[in-house]
């Protein structure tokens, strides 16, 4: 507990948290705008001809559950990126500023230190989720009322999506810590993390669609192995036809978080600090 307090104090006593908070706000506003336009378009059904083979997906996306879940988890795309970067910084700043020596002198039990870092990163992630969700509750009510769908706050799908959104924030922060341990360089880890999150999903989506064209449709299901796609699957408000079940996304993401967390901790236990 002392250790977690110390880790949180480390973050509080630098400008990291408010810089990240400041970055998050405009990004949240940007996605809010996009989601509002999208909700408006989907709800009015006013977006021209839909190819027959995509009709099912569009219908699913048009469902009230999906629209509501989407708007109440607004900001997720960048939010997850931000908490992952925070997780990375929780570890790499120790190496960047050479404070890791002091940290391990203070507490030689490195597993305890790493656990505290994971918990601290998770606490931060939850704070970001909490603030974002608070903003989303205001935004969602406004947007959904504007398209005459009502607030949907009594809808179970909304709260499932919100909870899964929390899980996503949690898991990405843990992933960040794992990446930070494996790549000690602050810049290296940050770039890798961003590539994994952004480039990874786009690149993998392209690669998989090419492979699918060659080897058959089933390969599309492998998309779920890409972390960012797994998390977006996990929090998609409803089951979209043609997608793997949502729980696989959660399973894959938990798997990644556990693996990076454990490997990170074990690596740190053995490493010479010089």
């Amino acid at each position, binding site marked *: 507990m*002392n250790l977690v307090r*110390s880790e949180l*104090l480390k973050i509080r*006593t*630098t400008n990291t948290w408010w810089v990240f908070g400041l970055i998050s706000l405009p990004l949240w506003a940007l996605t809010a705008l996009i989601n509002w336009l999208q909700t408006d378009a989907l709800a009015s059904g006013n977006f021209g001809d839909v190819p027959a083979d995509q009709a099912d997906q569009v219908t699913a996306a048009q469902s009230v559950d999906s629209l509501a879940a989407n708007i109440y988890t607004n900001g997720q795309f960048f939010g997850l990126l931000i908490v992952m970067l925070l997780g990375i910084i929780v570890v790499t700043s120790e190496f960047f500023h050479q*404070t890791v020596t002091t940290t391990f002198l203070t507490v030689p039990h490195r597993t305890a230190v790493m656990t505290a870092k994971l918990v601290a990163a998770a606490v931060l992630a939850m704070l970001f989720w909490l603030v974002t969700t608070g903003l989303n509750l205001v935004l969602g009510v406004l947007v959904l009322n504007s398209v005459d769908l009502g607030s949907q706050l009594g809808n179970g799908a909304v709260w499932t999506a919100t909870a899964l959104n929390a899980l996503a924030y949690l898991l990405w922060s843990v992933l960040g810590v794992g990446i930070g341990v494996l790549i000690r360089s602050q810049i290296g880890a940050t770039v890798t993390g961003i590539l994994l999150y952004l480039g990874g999903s786009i690149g993998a989506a392209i690669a998989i669609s090419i492979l699918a064209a060659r080897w058959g449709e089933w390969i599309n299901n492998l998309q779920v192995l890409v972390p960012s796609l797994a998390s977006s699957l996990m929090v998609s408000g409803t089951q979209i036809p043609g997608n793997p079940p949502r729980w696989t996304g959660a399973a894959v993401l938990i798997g990644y978080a556990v693996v990076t967390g454990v490997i990170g901790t074990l690596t740190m236990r053995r490493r*010479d600090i*010089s």
Partner: protein
Amino acid sequence: MSDGQRSPTTGSGQIVVSGLTKQYKNVRAVDNLSFTVEPGRVTGFLGPNGAGKTTTLRMLLNLVTPTGGTATIGGQRYADLTDPLRHVGAVLEASSAHKGRTGINHLRVICAAAGLPKSRADEALALVGLTPAAKRKFKGYSLGMKQRLGIAAAMLGDPRVLILDEPANGLDPEGIRWMRGFLKGLAHEGRTVLVSSHLLSEMQLLADDVVIIAAGKLVRQGPVEQVLGSMAQGGGRVRVRTPQADELVAALRAQSATVETGEHGVLLVTGADAPAIGKAALAAGVELHELTPERPDLERVFLELTAGKAGIR
């Protein structure tokens, strides 16, 4: 804490290094090294750059895993100490704080992790005279202030063992003087103080004991005087100045002392100490203008001991 009224803590503050070895891929940085460090004394840990001093200290502090051997503080490995900061304070590198964090917050973070009260941060800062800079960010600190902050961090738990790696690095003469007084004071209170350095002249003023290593191996260990005394070369020589050189030389040679003539007519006498020379001069009725026993200095001893074992391997 520096009032000298420190109650003896359980267990001694003795540091015991035994058969310590660290093998990196191609280099044996520390090679079967054994020595002990006693409480109540300042022990200088000396060696040329690259001799393995830092690696040894880091193994002692559980930061680097030894390939073989053990290192204990008060009979326990560092990793096994409960509340390590209450037993051992270490200053390893001056630049180890987050650049954007204030000095006081740096210490508070450590207090939080160690379960020490927040007030210790203020006390430790006052102890090293950094209170005026408490709320300044670390990046604005001078090298000397950084070094002081490192010492403040080491003193947070009021430890009985202090370990410092090259603390004089980058300090100005005033800072070095402060450091010397501070460390001597701590040893005087009964604490164990282990200080690594390659600055020998500084060690001669500071250390009671020395441990000298080169190429990862122990070269010599013991009280400074003893290590100096063991080096007969240069030891026991006395500089003498007199207007009646011939008479004095004759008198001294009669006592089977050896006399050489140095520059400007200085006589360099070996085989007789200063009192003996003074007595001989008085007996012979010779006037003396200078009578100075030459102290063998640590630097020369060190260079002789570590000759050919320089750090480049």
